[in-house]
């Protein structure tokens, strides 16, 4: 019962946000910020799976985001819109409404396959070396995209706005927001279920002691592969959403800067804390927006806030705890099961 109540309240909030956007109570700017919050939640929770729960140090999350963004965008533009690059739509534009989740998923799978690039070296090396490899993967992805002229190269790729428009031609609600809300809910649910499952606990075991995990019959290699692929796949989905929210992507968006932003959210929220990652993604996005009037000085003030946070609370907002550990009453609404024997 209690696990349904969190789902229902999330759906109610989502519906409320969509209605408010439709009727104009939330203006376009607030909507965009809301969608960025959602995308950042997906990015930070998915990176937390690898950096927090599994204890590896991946710094190339934006690379996987780029893979997902490009695959989904190219597919959608090719399939559902009239474009100068690919000519007339291959499918009826109105089918975009039903097939969008499919292309999003294909983007995610593509990104998950790119995640394999990181997973395989992770069998042999950990720590700093693995960080360098993930960094390299990020650069490989960015440079590859820059050099594929068909999809715009360094100039970027656009036309995703038309995909959203063709969805809105059928039912006129802000579809980008709807998809973000659905994907955020699904991501948080998947990661929550995963890390709380018996199988998923193997990830934390790998973090704490790889040898002990292995001799307790955890398949550590497969565990790492699953974690990396799930994490990068979700990042790819976030990328696909990001592309359709903005309507334009270019390789310059998915640099180490973007990866760092995600890293910051993970460490701000607390490693190995799902609710921490959600909270910090919300907080971080809002802070960035709040300081927008400061213009360039924003990049002085925000890092300064981070330094202060690291000085006074190095374990992040939540540390290794979840919201339900701090406010046990919340357990009534969120299905966190406690077990002792």
């Amino acid at each position: 019962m209690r696990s349904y109540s969190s789902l229902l309240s999330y759906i109610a909030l989502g519906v409320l946000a969509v209605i408010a956007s439709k009727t104009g109570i939330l203006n376009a700017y607030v909507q965009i910020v809301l969608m960025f919050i959602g995308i950042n939640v997906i990015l930070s929770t998915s990176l937390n799976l690898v950096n927090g729960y599994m204890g590896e140090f991946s710094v190339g999350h934006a690379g996987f985001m780029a893979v997902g963004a490009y695959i989904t965008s190219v597919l959608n533009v090719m399939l559902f819109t009239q474009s100068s690059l690919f000519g007339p739509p291959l499918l009826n534009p109105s089918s975009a409404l039903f097939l969008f989740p499919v292309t999003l998923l294909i983007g995610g799978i593509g990104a998950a396959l790119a995640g394999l690039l990181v997973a395989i070296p992770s069998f042999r090396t950990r720590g700093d070396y693995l960080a360098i490899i993930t960094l390299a993967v990020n650069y490989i992805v960015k440079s590859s995209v820059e050099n594929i002229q068909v999809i715009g190269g360094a100039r970027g790729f656009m036309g995703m706005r038309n995909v959203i428009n063709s969805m809105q031609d059928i039912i006129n609600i802000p579809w980008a927001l709807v998809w973000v809300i659905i994907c955020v809910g699904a991501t948080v649910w998947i990661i929550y279920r995963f890390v709380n499952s018996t199988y998923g606990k193997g990830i934390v075991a790998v973090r704490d002691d790889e040898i002990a995990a292995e001799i307790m019959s955890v398949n550590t290699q497969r565990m790492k592969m699953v974690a990396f692929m799930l994490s990068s796949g979700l990042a790819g989905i976030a990328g696909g959403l990001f592309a359709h929210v903005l309507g334009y992507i270019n390789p310059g968006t998915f640099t180490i800067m973007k990866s760092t932003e995600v890293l910051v959210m993970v460490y701000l929220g607390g490693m190995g804390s799902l609710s921490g990652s959600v909270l910090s993604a919300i907080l971080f996005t809002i802070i960035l927006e709040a300081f927008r009037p400061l213009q360039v000085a924003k990049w002085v003030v925000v890092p300064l806030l981070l330094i202060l946070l690291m000085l006074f609370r190095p374990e992040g907002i939540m540390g290794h705890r979840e919201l339900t550990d701090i406010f046990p009453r919340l357990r009534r609404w969120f299905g966190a099961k406690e077990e002792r024997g």
Partner: protein
Amino acid sequence: MLEVSNLHVKYGNIEALHGISFHVDEGEMVALLGANGAGKSTTLMSIMRLPPPEGPQVTKGEIRFNGVDLLPVAAHILIVKYGVGLVPEGRHIFGNLTVFENLKLATYARKDKDQIEKDYERVFSLFPRLADRRWQRGDLLSGGEQQMLAIGRAFMSGVRFVLLDEPSMGLSPLLMLELFRVLKELNESGTTILVVEQNARIALKYAHRAYVLEAGKIVLEGAAEALADNPEIQKAYLG
């Protein structure tokens, strides 16, 4: 049960084992003795193939378990499918989990719920100290208690053949004695044990048979009592 023949193992370019052969029969407790660097732990690591970079490489030879070639088998499968468990050197228990959680984690891949309940009771009766500290964090245990937990954990993973790497390391003589008494008890109730030890005196007292490793070769083997009386052993290991 376990048959190792002509095993050559190397780390990088350095060969650590130069073709050793030994066997452990069902129900036996066999000790692998030797000084530091003789290759005792390497032997265990070659049987229990931990993922690289930890694992040494086997270049030649065979490891067979009830006739099945173990060389291509990963550690996590060894436990589930063949019932071979390892108590690693340095214990490797989870310090941030309680004693009970550590034991429970060992049942990760087990499906036989009823037997698991019985096994908990068995572990707690073998190590009453663990029962007392059931809810204590692993890293707050003393060295001896951690070793007990590591052994209890191997037992909880439902294995019939346990490899132990230096269980007496860092223990007081009294605890050492208690530990080996429990190992003997486990052995008598059907668990086959291969124990790597530096402390030859105590290992020879409890084991059925023993092998002595020296610089990557087996130099002596035989029944434990016979070895304990061997003047060479007495001079080198028993003082």
